């Protein structure tokens, strides 16, 4: 990494020393200063190197080697794996699926999340309930959610068919995820549902960062709500939109559990994306790890190109230090910039560039005044009822699948497979909640998950805070490279790196140890925490720190004593995101922390005992899933208020 800038004096914001010291001391100091970024970014870089870079190199190496079906390395292959891959008859279809999957899921998610965030930004009775309901699909691990949806989509005993049948919409069971005509769309739907919560919260935060007085000003200027939306909301949401599009594209492209759990075992490749296809090439369809690695390499290359292109076009405004990905502007000049932008976007509509159209425009808007008034007269008294009602419907939509989970967890084995599905168990088997603890060592799994998620969260915080702080405050050679590097770490699907990770963990004797899993999970969670905190810290005025510096505090102490308390909301955000990500991590934990003999399994891995090779014990699986979701939802609900303002870069007063 060439972070330790080649140019002397790369650090710009550090004030010049008051008096000129001797030449030797100055040179010495300059050399030290060149190393300063390393000091702040070093831990992040080390973690990335160990957790992502090494397995990535391993992936590239494997892609150039011939590996037999049982895993024997048979030597250098040149580009043979890539040739084999390109001659796969299924490949064109899989690539088509992948593009459709990413475009549809990300596109619809963004389109739905924008108005949803707008809605949740309004004050109404029951808003917290809606926000909590939205949290559930996010807090539940994807493996659990996907299993739940598979059960809902089932043909003869699926809940969806029972509902549609009773509504008279279908007359015989539809095999939603088994039949080629519907399976892909079933997955797209689940993909959208689980992506909406995260995206909505990103937008919600973006909305809250927009100062109210801008809208007031727009109203005074006579702008319509639509003009205000186009002129203020959309442009100022741009940073949030960037985060949402970039992260969702990466997550959705790399999404493995949804497709794998629901349709992964169905013969053929009708629903495969390049990620699941890679897994199939390695472990089911071809048993060829070399060819799979070749696809893994191409996957990352593709993401780098697509995301790189998008980021370049939309732009991380990395010229001004402090403009993190989520912040609108920075420092004292921020409001001025906003006002300028606002003026630029509103004025063309009003009277600056196209004065000739002004009378026409007035004439056009005039007839609308009538209905508008009617609408307003209906809206004002109706609002206290309409908004909560809509809210309730939204909450029901997101919570309903998990009520099915609760309902099914109380069913007996016979009830579970009753056709058509029973809305309620014939007799609620509350005993399932007691006996699950003896069916699997659930308590040990929960302790493991708590310890690992807790430690990883602390580590991520300790490593990402200095990096985020430094990149937010200083412009230095390699700053942009560092931010991109962090972004790139997100592009490697853990599924693709798992063999390299396994090899690495073995070489340090770290199988089934807590510390190995904590380190790896931290490496993958680092990026989001760094981004969020970078954006937030950048929006804290520098003046705050100057006072501390005058008092003689060093940069480290300034960060901990002055900036950290101010950044509490961002820290809380990073904590909750990291915790949930680690709590729900599956692929890595399954591979390197999996020893039933000593109960060393995490919750997400352990409850898969109920999926088994023979039969899914949905009732126990759901009981265990619910028990696993509850602590996260409670934590989440308790911290939700901070979360929203944490994503809001710059809500400090």
């Amino acid at each position: 990494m060439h972070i330790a800038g080649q140019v002397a004096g790369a650090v710009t914001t550090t004030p010049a020393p008051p008096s000129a010291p001797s030449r030797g001391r100055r040179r010495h100091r300059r050399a030290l200063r060149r190393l300063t970024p390393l000091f702040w970014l070093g831990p992040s870089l080390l973690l990335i190197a160990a957790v992502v870079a090494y397995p990535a190199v391993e992936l590239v190496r494997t892609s150039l080697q011939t590996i037999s079906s049982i895993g024997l390395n048979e030597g250098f292959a040149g580009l043979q794996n890539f040739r084999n891959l390109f001659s796969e008859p299924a490949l064109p279809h899989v690539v088509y699926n992948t593009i459709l999957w990413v475009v549809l899921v990300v596109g619809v998610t963004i389109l739905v999340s924008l108005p949803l965030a707008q809605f949740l930004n309004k004050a109404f009775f029951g808003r917290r309930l809606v926000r909590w309901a939205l949290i559930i699909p996010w807090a539940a691990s994807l493996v659990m959610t996907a299993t739940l949806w598979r059960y809902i989509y089932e043909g003869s005993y699926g809940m969806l068919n029972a509902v549609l049948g009773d509504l008279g919409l279908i007359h015989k069971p539809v095999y939603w995820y088994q039949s080629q005509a519907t399976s892909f769309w079933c997955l797209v739907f689940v993909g959208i549902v689980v992506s909406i919560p995260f995206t909505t919260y990103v937008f919600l935060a973006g909305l809250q960062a927009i100062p109210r007085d801008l809208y007031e000003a727009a109203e005074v200027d006579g702008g319509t709500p639509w003009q205000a939306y186009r002129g203020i909301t959309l442009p100022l949401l741009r940073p949030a939109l960037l985060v949402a599009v970039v992260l969702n594209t990466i997550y959705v492209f790399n999404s493995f559990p949804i497709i794998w759990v629901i349709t992964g075992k169905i013969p053929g490749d009708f629903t495969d994306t390049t990620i699941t296809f890679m897994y199939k090439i390695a472990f089911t369809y071809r048993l060829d790890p070399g060819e799979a690695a070749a696809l893994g390499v191409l996957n990352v290359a593709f993401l780098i190109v697509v995301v790189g292109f998008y980021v370049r076009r939309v732009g991380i405004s990395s010229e001004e230090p402090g403009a993190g990905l989520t912040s609108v502007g920075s420092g004292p000049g921020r409001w001025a910039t906003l006002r300028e932008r606002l003026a630029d976007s509103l004025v063309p509509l009003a009277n600056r560039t196209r004065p000739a159209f002004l009378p026409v425009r007035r004439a056009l808007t005039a007839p609308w005044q009538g209905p508008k008034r009617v609408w307003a007269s209906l809206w004002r008294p109706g609002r206290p009822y309409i908004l909560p009602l809509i809210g309730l419907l939204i909450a029901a939509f997101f919570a309903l699948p998990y009520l099915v989970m609760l309902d099914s967890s109380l069913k007996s084995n016979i009830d579970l497979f009753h056709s058509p599905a029973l809305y309620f168990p014939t007799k609620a088997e509350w005993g399932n909640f007691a006996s699950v603890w003896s069916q699997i060592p659930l308590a040990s799994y929960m302790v493991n998950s708590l310890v690992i998620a807790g430690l990883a969260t602390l580590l991520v915080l300790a490593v990402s805070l200095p990096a985020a702080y430094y990149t937010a405050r200083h412009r230095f050679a390699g700053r942009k490279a560092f931010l991109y590097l962090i972004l790139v770490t997100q592009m490697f699907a853990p599924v693709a790196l798992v063999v390299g990770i396994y090899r690495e963990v073995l070489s340090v004797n770290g199988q089934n140890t807590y510390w190995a899993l904590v380190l790896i999970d931290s490496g993958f969670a680092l990026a989001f925490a760094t981004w969020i905190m970078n954006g937030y810290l950048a929006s804290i005025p520098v003046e705050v720190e100057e006072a501390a510096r005058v008092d003689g505090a060093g940069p480290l102490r300034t960060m901990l004593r002055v900036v950290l308390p101010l950044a509490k909301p961002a820290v809380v955000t990073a904590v909750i995101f990291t915790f949930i990500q680690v709590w729900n991590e599956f692929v890595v934990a399954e591979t390197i922390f999996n020893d039933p003999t000593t109960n060393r399994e995490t919750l997400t891995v352990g409850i898969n005992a109920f999926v088994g090779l023979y039969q899914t014990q949905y009732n126990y699986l759901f009981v265990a899933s619910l028990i696993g979701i509850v602590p996260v939802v409670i934590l989440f609900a308790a911290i939700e208020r901070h979360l929203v303002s944490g994503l809001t870069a710059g809500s400090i007063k």
Partner: protein
Amino acid sequence: MSKKSRHIAAAAGLGTMSLGLALAAPAVAGGTASATPSHAGLSGSINVVMAQYSSLTAPYWKSLVKAFEQKYPSIHVALRVIDWNTLLQQVPTMIQTHTQPDILNFNNYSTYASAGLLFPAQQVLSAQVEADFFPAFKKSDTLKGTQYGIPWIASVRALGYNKAAFVKAGISSPPKTWAQLEADAIKATKAGYVGYCLPLGSEEAQAEWSLWMWSNGGNWVNAKGQWAINSPQNVATLNFLRKLANTDQATQPNPGSTDRTSGCWAEFATGKVAMTEIMPLGTFQTSFMAKSNVKWASSPWPRSSLKIPAFTLGVQDVLMAFKHSGHAPLDKAFLDFVYQKGNYLNFVKREGFLPATNSASSALKNNPVDATGIALLPKAKFYPLTNPNWTVVQSAVQSQLGTAMAPGTNPKTVLDSLQRDAVSGR
């Protein structure tokens, strides 16, 4: 050279040990046939990876290892019990990273044996244990004259039928031929049942396919032992299944993506299925039928012509001993302990599988359910486990065969593609 001589030394050691055993055995009190050979004086550590068959598996192995280490305090056993899904993914990774265990419980051995990774079975088993295995199992675990696979547990398959469904559909006796099965399935469908539940989903497509293929006189390989997956008989078999599903509509919808357990057995247990492939015991009995009130029975697999001899499909899982760390004497001590009659019988009974040894099966003969399965064993046919490409073929069949059932697909194309994969081995 040094490696070779070490093996020879190990083999010599084995020889004297089993000789000592042969002399010592009658002297053991009671003279029980299952007296354990002595492995005193050994010390060291071995890695053992066992497959998780149910929630009872890990506790079983934990206590067995504890007992073993008590008996041999200077031998340490590092045990891992891994669920099947993870195991299938991890074993290639272990080989790739040179971390294979000393003893592994798996479903296929031949690719590993032909790559030279395994000890011959006789190096890690005492002659007494070796002599106790069913000959049919030993045969399918033998590659080019040397046995590498160590028979572990087995299951056999049969046609299961719902008695009430047969009565309601007016079927007096279970079908013996394909024509009868087709007619019965249509009758049962008219009576409101799924006539025949056909599981060609990935879970165990190779088992369902083997039964149908063999019952039409087809096979995985031809008389010369070359792959013959796309033979005319096999294409005809697939066309019969397509007719049953698509023309007669006498199966469940989407047979190409229905799994045996979650699809057919779960439905059979609710009483909606008239006929399907079952295991007369094991998981089918314990997990699905034990709490169901469906009255059922099983019969031999129907054949396209009665000229084709009756058979059943035998599926066996194996243990194998990797030789990379050269622990043959330790492996032998452990495996002898594992196959001790009491220990082995305990495992087989708990998990509900058929034993692979004579002594265990004679102990189970009084149990009627076990007896049915054991009686089928002599007629059992096995997968071509000895072909090194079987691993790839099995995976390819699981992930592709089901697509041949969709209306509008050409079944020959699918079989051709499987044949290509089988021949190329990738």
